């Protein structure tokens, strides 16, 4: 993959770079797809389908600069929708745009709303990881292409829009279908007040949420895939991302009360494989999982204050990944509280300074199926709490320092958690500074943007251990580029 970075970094033509990337990727994949049976080979090449779409997008990038995504569709700079002028942290207008099904536009025909992003990085961990940080990577100080992504992001038809992300994961060397949120929205009146209502089809509980205090779009917005991360996390905290498909309905009444209800169904192992997921790496379920969300919001537009207080939850039977329960089912119920506060120093300027704070507290209860108790030796009931609080301040939508405290704590059980002492507890802090030169009204490249960030994660405890926690501390330097075709 570093070879690909080298080729991409050269100022060759898009077609030449694409041909080189195609060649290298085909070479990388060929040994994996050869020698299998026909069905295995089909599945293997199906994994490449999203990548093929991605490459097709790259291939047309010369002319593709005329193709749009959100910013081109609306004629707005990135900073209008995003704190720090780069996704995914949303401003009040960004939330409005999402709730209205990504359909707001400037009335012009911009063609297909396609966009392309690339994330490259360098990771340094305090202590090298024996055997390599990941297959094909050194124990420490690794450069990586984290992700190459192509998006369909914008209006599909009047009142109907979508966000569909296809990734090539450069660390796992895997093409996959990432987040999907396709929604329809309309407006009405009830009790003499405005009512916005919509329906969503998505594949990740909370990916459809417009606030960054819920897990799917929460801070940190990117993170090293080559540094150790704590083992325990709640189901709603990414445990079902891209592993389920769901539909739901939402309403926003009087710009005050937000209600949403969804139901998710787990994808089968062949479906997961076809979409680029590794079935055993995460939770699997054949169950229907209900999801609910409520939020109270208040916008003081003239003074620039915005507040949201909410709750969300999900429940269902899952088989945890990695053989955690030897394939036995666990009934998990997650209930969470969240809050968002934003202060926009001058609401008439998208480049004005912005303070943003988020908090969430997720409480999970897990009940192991009775037939699994004897074989696993685990306790029948566990709880796991995750708490995160982050604050950021964006200077002129250009420099955005952020800080977060995170903590996960739960029932210690050596037969349930594969940590050295059976404790799932971890806590620590994340410090980050991001620099975004463009994405403002006067930026020279309205079709392009980039985000340069340095992030430091410091663990106070890690997988139940205080003594060895610091060895997992890491620096993560990332360059995130976005081109709106």
């Amino acid at each position, binding site marked *: 993959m570093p070879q690909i970075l080298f080729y991409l970094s050269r100022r060759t033509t898009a077609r030449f770079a694409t041909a080189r990337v195609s060649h290298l990727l085909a070479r990388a994949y060929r040994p994996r797809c050869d020698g299998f049976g026909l069905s295995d080979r089909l599945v293997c090449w199906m994994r490449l389908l999203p990548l093929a779409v991605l490459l097709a997008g790259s291939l047309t990038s010369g002319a593709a600069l005329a193709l749009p995504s959100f910013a081109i569709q609306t004629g707005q*700079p990135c900073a209008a929708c995003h704190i720090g002028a780069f996704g995914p942290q949303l401003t009040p207008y960004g939330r*409005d745009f999402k709730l209205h099904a990504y359909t707001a536009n400037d009335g012009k025909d911009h063609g297909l709303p396609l966009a392309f992003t690339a994330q490259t990085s360098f990771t340094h961990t305090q202590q090298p990881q024996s055997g390599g940080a990941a297959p094909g990577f050194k124990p420490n100080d690794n450069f990586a292409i984290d992700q190459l992504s192509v998006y369909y992001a914008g209006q599909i038809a009047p009142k109907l829009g979508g966000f569909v992300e296809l990734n090539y994961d450069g660390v796992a060397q895997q093409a996959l279908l990432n987040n999907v949120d396709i929604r329809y929205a309309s407006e009405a009146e009830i009790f003499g007040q405005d009512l916005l209502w919509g329906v969503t089809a998505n594949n990740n509980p909370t990916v459809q949420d417009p606030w960054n205090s819920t897990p799917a779009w929460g801070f940190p917005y990117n993170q090293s895939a080559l540094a150790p991360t704590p083992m325990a996390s709640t189901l709603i905290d990414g445990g079902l991302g891209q592993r389920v498909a769901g539909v739901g309905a939402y309403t926003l009444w009087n710009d005050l009360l937000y209600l949403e209800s969804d139901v998710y169904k787990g994808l089968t192992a062949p479906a997961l494989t076809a979409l680029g997921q590794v079935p055993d790496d995460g939770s699997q379920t054949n169950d229907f999982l209900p999801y609910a969300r409520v939020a109270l919001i208040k916008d003081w537009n003239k003074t620039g204050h915005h507040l949201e207080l909410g709750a969300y939850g999900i429940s269902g039977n899952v088989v945890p990944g990695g053989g955690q329960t030897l394939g036995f089912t666990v009934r998990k119920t997650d209930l969470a509280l969240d809050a968002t506060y934003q202060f926009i120093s001058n609401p*008439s300027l998208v*480049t004005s300074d912005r303070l943003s704070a988020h908090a969430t507290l997720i409480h999970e209860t897990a009940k192991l199926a009775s037939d699994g108790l004897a074989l696993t030796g685990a306790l029948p009931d566990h709880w796991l709490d995750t708490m995160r609080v982050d604050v950021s301040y964006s200077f002129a939508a250009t420099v955005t320092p952020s800080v977060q405290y995170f903590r996960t704590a739960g029932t210690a059980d050596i037969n349930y958690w594969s940590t050295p002492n059976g404790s799932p507890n971890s806590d620590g802090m994340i410090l980050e500074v991001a620099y975004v030169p463009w994405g403002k009204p006067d930026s020279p490249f309205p079709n392009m943007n980039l985000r340069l960030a340095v992030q430091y994660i410091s663990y106070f405890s890690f997988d139940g251990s205080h003594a060895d926690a610091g060895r997992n501390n890491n620096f993560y330097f990332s360059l995130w580029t976005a081109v709106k075709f």
Partner: protein
Amino acid sequence: MPMRFAVAIAIMLGLATAAAAAATVTVVQKGLALDRSSMSVAKGDRITFTNDDDVIHNIHIFGPGSDDNVDLGLQKPGKNLSYRFDAAGSYRVRCNIHPSVKMSVTVN
């Protein structure tokens, strides 16, 4: 002849009175919002929409009939757009780009 002169004077006075009665009201568009959520004007009055933001807007007026609408087009920062409300009824004003930019207008 005096009769014709009197009629002409009356017509001119009438026109002048009508012209004086037609008012222009300015609605400020700032911070991705309008400075009011509703207002009433008389038939023939004009509303001028400012753009005090640093991004483009696109005022669209719906009404008074269910199929009636006028798109005032893209509005760059610092530019004003105006529209004369010639028919009585209820109107909705909103920005095509920013859903939060909205108000209702009643024309009497």
